């Protein structure tokens, strides 16, 4: 309580930072921190450029972003380093190994979804188990209008179209980003309205049902009107048009020369989608972060903490909950449009309950309500999913083809049953991860720290020098 007047606020804040952030921050403090981080990134980039397929190096590159996050330095420096990593290093290495761009794209996609879900679950405290439905709404919106599906409305699924042209030009992708946001927000309200009165378990079950309804609709709306093409899914879906100089001109030629690999249209689209997803992710982070620290964000938290008290303070329950559902859904709606265009294919399988759960896992793993945590959670889960486990499986299968023996037990690799493929144990690994997290760090990897409001001790009316003693005396008497 007793603030020493002579103490400078600067030393206080650094002290607070150190005690809050722990070991990594302490190691990175001082002028050597940025030098170390830059050196680290340079070494990893160099090695990765020489060995583009090394799993560990890929992992270390993404871990570099985490290091930057933990640096106790000025925000602009961190933003600069992170920007260079995302805008320059990852694409540069992606020239050598386009898989890195795919990882980047998927991490950005799922991080956006996780951030959207985080608004509903983390900020407003409304457990939503059917979140992927909003992603599906966006994806199917562009899939239906951005493919030749509209010609097929009256034919049975699987019939080849008789037309060569698409009903809408590819440039419609851009307006459909907006439509995707709107449609998903609308679906969010649609889900939100009937569940306004529900809490906890009941809410979770209704949202779970909603998610399944959307998936089942996608699966079955091939009759009587063939809107979704049923379980076969819709393909091809148009990608947004890119100017010719990007696709064929000097740029890909130059990139081919630099990388020593032919850079074609597909690669340029990989770059494009990577950047598009990152831009949308950055937008989402900014949006969510700023909303969190606003009247609306405080209302969400208030409702999560105690809805009776929140209403008594004048927070309209209905509207506040609906905005949470709508805004949370909107992010993933736009991402759905981007995802459909990137894959040029959508099918109901992508939007299963397990997908909803894995987005929830990202949120919980990273830290419920914490924006950096949620992004990290999304990165970890996605990389485990599409990179680590797959790579291990590949390596295992190459061992299996050799003549080597398994150490210790002396059985040939070839006899190892295929059931032991790591890629088959995705869900098991996530389950274990969650259990471990719940036991040892239930608040998530980067827990949400209820923002410390900047109380400038100097201009704080709570602490006017003349009255301070007086207030202190009252307080000791009063409490």
């Amino acid at each position: 309580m007793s603030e020493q007047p002579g103490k400078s606020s600067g030393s206080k804040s650094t002290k607070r930072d150190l005690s809050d952030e722990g070991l990594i921050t302490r190691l990175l403090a001082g002028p050597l921190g940025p030098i170390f981080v830059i050196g680290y990134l340079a070494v990893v980039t160099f090695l990765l450029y020489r060995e583009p397929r090394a799993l560990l190096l890929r992992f270390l590159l993404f871990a570099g972003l985490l290091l930057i996050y933990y640096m106790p330095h000025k925000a602009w420096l961190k933003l600069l380093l992170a920007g260079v990593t995302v805008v320059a290093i990852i694409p540069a290495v992606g020239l050598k190994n386009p898989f890195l761009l795919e990882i980047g794209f998927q991490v950005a996609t799922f991080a956006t979804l996780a951030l959207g879900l985080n608004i509903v679950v983390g900020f407003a405290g409304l457990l939503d188990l059917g979140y992927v439905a909003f992603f599906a709404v966006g994806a199917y919106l562009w899939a239906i209008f951005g493919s030749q599906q509209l010609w097929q409305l009256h034919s049975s699924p699987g019939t080849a179209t008789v037309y060569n042209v698409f009903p809408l030009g590819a440039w419609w992708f851009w307006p459909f980003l907006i439509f995707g946001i709107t449609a998903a927000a609308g679906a969010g309200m649609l889900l939100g309205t009937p569940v306004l009165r529900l809490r906890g378990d009941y809410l979770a079950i209704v949202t779970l049902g909603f998610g399944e309804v959307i998936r089942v609709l996608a699966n079955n709306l091939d009759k009587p009107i063939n809107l979704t093409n049923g379980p076969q899914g819709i393909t091809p879906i148009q990608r947004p048009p890119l100017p010719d100089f990007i696709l064929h001109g000097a740029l890909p030629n130059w990139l081919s020369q630099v990388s020593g690999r032919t850079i074609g249209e597909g690669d340029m689209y990989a770059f494009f989608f990577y950047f598009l997803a990152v831009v949308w992710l950055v937008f989402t982070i900014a949006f969510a972060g700023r909303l969190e620290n606003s009247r609306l964000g405080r209302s969400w938290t208030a409702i999560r903490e105690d809805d009776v008290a929140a209403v008594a303070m004048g927070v309209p329950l209905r509207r506040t909950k609906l905005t949470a559902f709508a805004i949370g859904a909107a992010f993933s709606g736009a991402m759905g449009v981007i995802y459909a265009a990137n894959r040029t294919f959508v099918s109901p399988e992508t939007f299963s309950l397990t997908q909803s759960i894995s987005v929830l896992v990202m949120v919980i793993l990273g830290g419920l309500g914490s924006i950096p945590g949620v992004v990290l959670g999304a990165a970890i889960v996605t990389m485990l999913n599409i990179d680590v486990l797959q790579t291990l499986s590949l390596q295992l299968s190459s061992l299996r083809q050799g003549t080597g023996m398994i150490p210790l037990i002396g059985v040939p690799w070839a006899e190892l049953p295929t059931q032991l493929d790591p890629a088959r144990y995705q869900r098991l690994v996530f389950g274990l991860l969650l259990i471990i997290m719940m036991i040892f760090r239930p608040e998530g990897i980067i827990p949400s720290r209820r923002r410390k409001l900047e109380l400038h001790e100097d201009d704080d009316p709570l602490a006017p020098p003349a009255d301070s003693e007086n207030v202190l005396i009252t307080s000791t008497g009063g409490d």
Partner: protein
Amino acid sequence: MAPILELHKITKRFGGLVAVSGVEISLDKGRIASIIGPNGAGKTTIFNSITGVYKPEEGTVVFDGHPITGMRPDQITAMGMCRTFQNIRLFQNMSVMENVMVGAHTRTTQSTGIGAVLRTKAFREAEEAVRLKAKQLLRFVDLPLGLGDQLARNLPYGQQRRIEIARALAAEPKLILLDEPTAGMNPQETEAAIRLFRRLRDEMGITVLLIEHDMKVVMGISEWVSVIDYGQKIAEGTPAEVRKNQRVIEAYLGRHATVHEG
């Protein structure tokens, strides 16, 4: 003086149980008044019926000349009535400042999230104004300085009570309802709390309606007392009148009890 709050024949039932039955209360502007009664008499039910948490089956509530029966709690708060709770209901995992800032919800004008996202000048000014107001209110309730960024749950009980009052004040109420605000306080704390309630009226011009258990508090501060027992109003008047009322003595202390002056 014109009444700021009138209850006309309020009846609230829970299934077969009649919690409040035909209660009439009229509260003049600028008064400090109390509703007292034994445990389970229906005091908090009356509060909840006034603030819109419950909708009374019969009767009307008129606040500041407008009938408010059936309105939602947040609408009623927006009209200028705010409350505290019997068991403190702060937003535990929000900072003290944020708690008070939520209280100002109906008095800030950033209606959409757009301003917040764009960090417009209007947004920043509104935000700064709310923050300043919150600081002033925390000071008004004599919260020790520098606690603004603490989580509400980390503070001792007496301070939480004060924060709850500051939060209610942030809604700029004309009428504040305090539900057993001194429950669980020691004599010194109660003393300080009573001083604070007086200042609400004297310095801010807010009408105060208390539910209270502690006779010392009631008699010390109230200018008008309504006594509730078994959901019905059994007496009202000045503290001096009420304490002499035989029905009140029976209800409160049991039959054959007498109260000594003091």
